[in-house]
C-alpha cells in the first residue's frame, strides 16, 4: 500500500487509511497500560510504607507537631493584715516559656536576640532544665513581665516554621508594697535554686517553681503556694490554640492572714525612716506580733520573680545588710534594758531585798578595777536604781549574784534561745554562764565578769524580738507567749515563770518611773497613758574586744535601745526598738512612744476595748481570687 497523502487530500480517504493504521500501536498501548499499573503500584507502596508499615512514627510526630503543654500557674495566696487588708497581692502579667516538646537549641540565639536576653545564660538555663530530668512536658520559663513589644515579637515568631517552642503563659506576678513596707516580715519569692532542689526540704519541687525564699513567704510556702495545673492544647502551625485536649485546673494558694496591724506597721516604718534598726510590737497577752520593722529595707518587687536582676547582687553586697531582718537577727548587747531583768533576778534570788541601797559616786571598784557609772546618783535604792539606770547600783547587784543565777533568769524571760516566731532564720542571742564560757572559750568564769553582765554588756546579746517578748512577759506578771505572725498555728503553750508577783510589781513600778518620774525614758511619755519602759545604750564592741586592743571606729557609736509597754496595769502592747548607732536610749524612746500612741489612738478611734483579728468569711480565706484592696475595721 502506498501512503502518499498530502494535507490537502480529502478527509474521508485520509481517515480511511489512518483508520486502518489505528491498531498498529496496540502493543505500545498495552505497554502504556503496564506502565500505568507500575506507576500505581509504585505510589501504593509509598502509602503502604507510611500508613501501614509504621504509622505510629508519624502519628507520634503529628502529635509532637500539634500538641503543646501549657502550664496553668496557680496564683499564690495573698497575705493580709489582721483587719483583712491586703499586704501582698498579685498582678497579672505574661511570662514566656519554651515548650520542650519542640525545643531546638539552634533557635535560642535568635530568641535571645529578639528578647534582649543573655544568650549564654539562656543556654545554661535550658541545659539546667534538661539535665535535671524534669518531665518532658514541663516548659522552661525564660522571661517574665513581657512588655507589649516582646509580646509582639513572640506573636509573630511562634508559628511552626519559626520558633514553635515559644509559649506565652498568663502569670500572677507577686506584688509587694512599695518602699519595702513589711518587707522583712513577708519576705519574698524566687525560683527554686539548684542547691535548694538538692536539699530534702525542697525535694517535692520542680525546676522552675517559684517558692517563698524568706519571711512569711517561706515559712508558710505550703499554704500560700497553690498547685499548678496544666493544659494540653492542640495548636495549628501558627502556634494558635485550636482546642483544649485536657485541662487540669490550677488550685490557687490560700490567703494568709497575719497578726500584723498595717496602721501600726506604717507608723513603725515611719519612725525608723532613714535610720538603721528595728521595731517590734507585740501583744504580750497572746504573743501576736502587731508590727515588725527592720531598716534599711529592700524592695521585694525587684526580685519577686524567677529571674533576678542585678539589683539582687547590690542588695547582697550592701554593707548595711538591708536583707537582714534586724528584728529577729540583730544580736546586740541589751545594755541597760537588761536592768529590769537583773533587778527581778536579784530580788528573786534574795541577793538584794527591798531595803538594799548603795551610794553612787560615779562608779565603783570591783576586783581592783574601776567601773564607771554614767552619772552620779548619790544614795540609790531599788526604785531609783532602775528609774535613773544607775550602773553602780547594778554593779553591786551583779557582784552579789552568781552568774548562773543571772543566766537562769535571763533564760526564763526568753534570752539565749529562739522565741519560736514563725519566721525563718531567727537568731538565738547569747546568755553567758559558766557552761557557756567553758564551751565557747574553754575558760573558767571570772566573778569580775558579772559586773558588766549586770548592766547588759559583756557577752550578752539579744534580738529586738526577744527583748519585746521578755519585757512583755514580765509586764503581764511573768508569762511568756510564743511570738507569732499567723494566729492559731502550732503555738507552744505559754511559759509561766516562777516569780513572785510582788517582785514583778517592783520592776514594773521602776519602769513606770523611767518614763513618768523623770527617769531616762521621759521622751516616751504619753498623756493619759501609763507607759512603762527602759532605755538602753549598748556598746557595739564588747569590753573584751576593747581590752584586746580593738579600736572603736568613729561610726560604731553605741546602739540605742528602748523597750516599753502600756498600760501599766493589764498591758496590751509591748514595743522594743533597736536604733543602731543611736548613741543613747533616750533617742530611741520617741520611736516606741509613736508606736504606742498609734496603737492607743486607733483603739480610741474604733472605740473597741480590745483589738481582735477581723473575722473574715471562711471562703475568703480558702481560695479567694479578689479581695478589696482596702477593707476591714479601719474604715468602719
Amino acid at each position, binding site marked *: 500500500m502506498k501512503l502518499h497523502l498530502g494535507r490537502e487530500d480529502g478527509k474521508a480517504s485520509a481517515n480511511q487509511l*489512518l*483508520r486502518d493504521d489505528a491498531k498498529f500501536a496496540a502493543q505500545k498501548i498495552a505497554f502504556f497500560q503496564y506502565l500505568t499499573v507500575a506507576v500505581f503500584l509504585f505510589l501504593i507502596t509509598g502509602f503502604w510504607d507510611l500508613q501501614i508499615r509504621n504509622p505510629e512514627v508519624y502519628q507520634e510526630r503529628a502529635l509532637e507537631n500539634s500538641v503543646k503543654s501549657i502550664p496553668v500557674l496557680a496564683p499564690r495566696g495573698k497575705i493580709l493584715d489582721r483587719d483583712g487588708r491586703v499586704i501582698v497581692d498579685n498582678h497579672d502579667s505574661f511570662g514566656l516559656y519554651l515548650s520542650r516538646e519542640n525545643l531546638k537549641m539552634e533557635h535560642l540565639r535568635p530568641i535571645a536576640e529578639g528578647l534582649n536576653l543573655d544568650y549564654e545564660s539562656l543556654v545554661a538555663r535550658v541545659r539546667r532544665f534538661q539535665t535535671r530530668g524534669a518531665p518532658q512536658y514541663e516548659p522552661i520559663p525564660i522571661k517574665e513581665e513581657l512588655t507589649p513589644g516582646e509580646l509582639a515579637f513572640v506573636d509573630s515568631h511562634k508559628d511552626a516554621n519559626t520558633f514553635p517552642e515559644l509559649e506565652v503563659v498568663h502569670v500572677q506576678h507577686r506584688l509587694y508594697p512599695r518602699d519595702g513596707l513589711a518587707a522583712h516580715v513577708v519576705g519574698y519569692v524566687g525560683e527554686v535554686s539548684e542547691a535548694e532542689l538538692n536539699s530534702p526540704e525542697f525535694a517535692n519541687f520542680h525546676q522552675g517553681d517559684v517558692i517563698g525564699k524568706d519571711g512569711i513567704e517561706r515559712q508558710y510556702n505550703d499554704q500560700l503556694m497553690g498547685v499548678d495545673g496544666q493544659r494540653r492544647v492542640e495548636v495549628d502551625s501558627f502556634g494558635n490554640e485550636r482546642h483544649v485536649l485536657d485541662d487540669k485546673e490550677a488550685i490557687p494558694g490560700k490567703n494568709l492572714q497575719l497578726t500584723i496591724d498595717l496602721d501600726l506597721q506604717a507608723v513603725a516604718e515611719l519612725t525608723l525612716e532613714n535610720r538603721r534598726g528595728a521595731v517590734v510590737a507585740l501583744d504580750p497577752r497572746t504573743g501576736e506580733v502587731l508590727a515588725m520593722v527592720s531598716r534599711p529595707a529592700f524592695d521585694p518587687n525587684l526580685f519577686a520573680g524567677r529571674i533576678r536582676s542585678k539589683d539582687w547582687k547590690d542588695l547582697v553586697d550592701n554593707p548595711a545588710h538591708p536583707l537582714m531582718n534586724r528584728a529577729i537577727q540583730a544580736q546586740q548587747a541589751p545594755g541597760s534594758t537588761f536592768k529590769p531583768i537583773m533587778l527581778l533576778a536579784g530580788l528573786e534570788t534574795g541577793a538584794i531585798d527591798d531595803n538594799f541601797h548603795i551610794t553612787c559616786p560615779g562608779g565603783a571598784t570591783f576586783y581592783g578595777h574601776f567601773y564607771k557609772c554614767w552619772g552620779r546618783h548619790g544614795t540609790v535604792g531599788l526604785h531609783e536604781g532602775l528609774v535613773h539606770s544607775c550602773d553602780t547600783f547594778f554593779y553591786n547587784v551583779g557582784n552579789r549574784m552568781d552568774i548562773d543565777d543571772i543566766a537562769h533568769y535571763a533564760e526564763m524571760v526568753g534570752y539565749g534561745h529562739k522565741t519560736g516566731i514563725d519566721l525563718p532564720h531567727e537568731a538565738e542571742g547569747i546568755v553567758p554562764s559558766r557552761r557557756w564560757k567553758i564551751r565557747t572559750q574553754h575558760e573558767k568564769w571570772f566573778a569580775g565578769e558579772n559586773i558588766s553582765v549586770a548592766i547588759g554588756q559583756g557577752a550578752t546579746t539579744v534580738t529586738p524580738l526577744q527583748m519585746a517578748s521578755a519585757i512583755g512577759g514580765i509586764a503581764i506578771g511573768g508569762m511568756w507567749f510564743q511570738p507569732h505572725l499567723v494566729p492559731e498555728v502550732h503555738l507552744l503553750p505559754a511559759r509561766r515563770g516562777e516569780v513572785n508577783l510582788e517582785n514583778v510589781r517592783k520592776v514594773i513600778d521602776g519602769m513606770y518611773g523611767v518614763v513618768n518620774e523623770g527617769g531616762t525614758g521621759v521622751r516616751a511619755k504619753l498623756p493619759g497613758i501609763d507607759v512603762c519602759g527602759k532605755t538602753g545604750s549598748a556598746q557595739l564592741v564588747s569590753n573584751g574586744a576593747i581590752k584586746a586592743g580593738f579600736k572603736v571606729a568613729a561610726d560604731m557609736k553605741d546602739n540605742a535601745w528602748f523597750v516599753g509597754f502600756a498600760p501599766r496595769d493589764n498591758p496590751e502592747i509591748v514595743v522594743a526598738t533597736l536604733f543602731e548607732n543611736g548613741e543613747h536610749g533616750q533617742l530611741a524612746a520617741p520611736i516606741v512612744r509613736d508606736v504606742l500612741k498609734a496603737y492607743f489612738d486607733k483603739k480610741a478611734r474604733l472605740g473597741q476595748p480590745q483589738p481582735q483579728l477581723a473575722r473574715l468569711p471562711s471562703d475568703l480565706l480558702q481560695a479567694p481570687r479578689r479581695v478589696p484592696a482596702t477593707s476591714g475595721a479601719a474604715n468602719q
Partner: protein
Amino acid sequence: MPAHRSIRDFDWLMVILVCAICALGVLQIFSATRDTRFAEAWWKQAVWILGGFIALWIGTLIDYHSLLGQAYVFYGLAIGTLAATFVIGMTAFGSRRWIGTAALHLQVSEFVKLVVVLLVARYLSELKGEQLELRDLLKLAGLVGLPMIMVMIQPDLGTALTFVPILGVGVFLAGFRWQHAVAILVLVAVAAPIGYWVVLKDYQRARVVSFLDPNQDPKGSGYQVIQSKIAVGSGALWGRGVTKGTQTQGRFLPVSQKDFIFSAFAEEHGFVGVIVALGLYFLLLMQIVQNAQTAPDKAGMFICMGIAALLLFHVLVNVGMVVGRMPVTGIPLPLMSSGGSNIVAMFLMLGLVNNVRLRRFVN
C-alpha cells in the same frame, strides 16, 4: 460531519469516575479550608466543576478533526497568550502564570497543555513511515519546546514538565529509532547538570535537594515533604476522619487544598481511602486508554494517549510528591486540587476523549 449520535454512546463510565473523583476533591477542599480564609473554596470548586461539565460537553460537540485542523492556529494563539502573560500577567506566589482580573483569572499554561496535545496529535498523525525521522523528531521537539521554555521562565517548572509526557508518549507510539533514544538520553545526561546549575532557580534547586534529603532542611523546602509524610503516615489504615486530621486542620500541611490535597486526603481517609481514590484514577486512565484503542484514526489515538500520559504524569508526580517519592514540583492533582483553570482544562481534555469515542463508528 456525522449529525446524530446516541446519548448512550457517551462515555458514562468516565463521567461517573470523574464525578466520584471530583466529589472526593470537593469534600477534601471543604475539610482542609474550614476556618481559613479559603473557606469558600469548596463551593467555588463545585461551581468550576459544573463549568467543567459544560466544557466537557463543548469538547465533545465539535469534531476533533476540526480542532486538529486548527491546531496550528491554536498553537499560535497559545504562544501569543503566553507572551502576553509576561506583559499583563498577574504575579502570585512569585510567578507570572495568571491572566485576567483578581476575581477571575486563568492560568494560561493549563490550556497550553491542551494545545500541545492537539499539536502533537496533528503532527504525528500526518507523518508517514513506520518510524520517526530525526528531522521530524527535532521539529516536533522544537514546537513543543518553545511553549515549554516560555512556561518554564514564568517560572513554572512543574507545568512545563507536563509537556514532556505528551511529547514522549506521542513519539513512543509513532515509533522511534533506538539510536535516537540513546542520543536523547546522552543529551539529557549532559544537559541535566547544566540545567541544574544554570536554568534552575535557587528555590528549585532547594526542592531537588530537599527531595533527595528532606531532613537536611527541615524548615525550608524539606518542610513540606516532611509535613506531608507525617500527614500521610498518621492517617494509617482508616484515616483520622473528615476534618479530624491535625496536620490538615492545624495547617501544618502546606497548600492542603491545592498541591498537597492528596496528603490531606490520605491523613483523613487513610490507606483505604487512598486505595479507593487511586483506584478511581486508575480506572479513569484505563477508560481513556480504551478510548484510544477504539479510536477511529491515528489522530484520535494520539489525542487520547496524550491526555492519558498527561494525567498519568500528574498523578505520578503529585501523589509521588505527597509520599516523598517525587520532588516538590508544585503541579496540581487533576480533578481534586482546588483551582478553576486546571479543572476546566482537564474537563476540556476529557471532552476530547469523549469526542474521539463518539466518532469511533464513523465512516
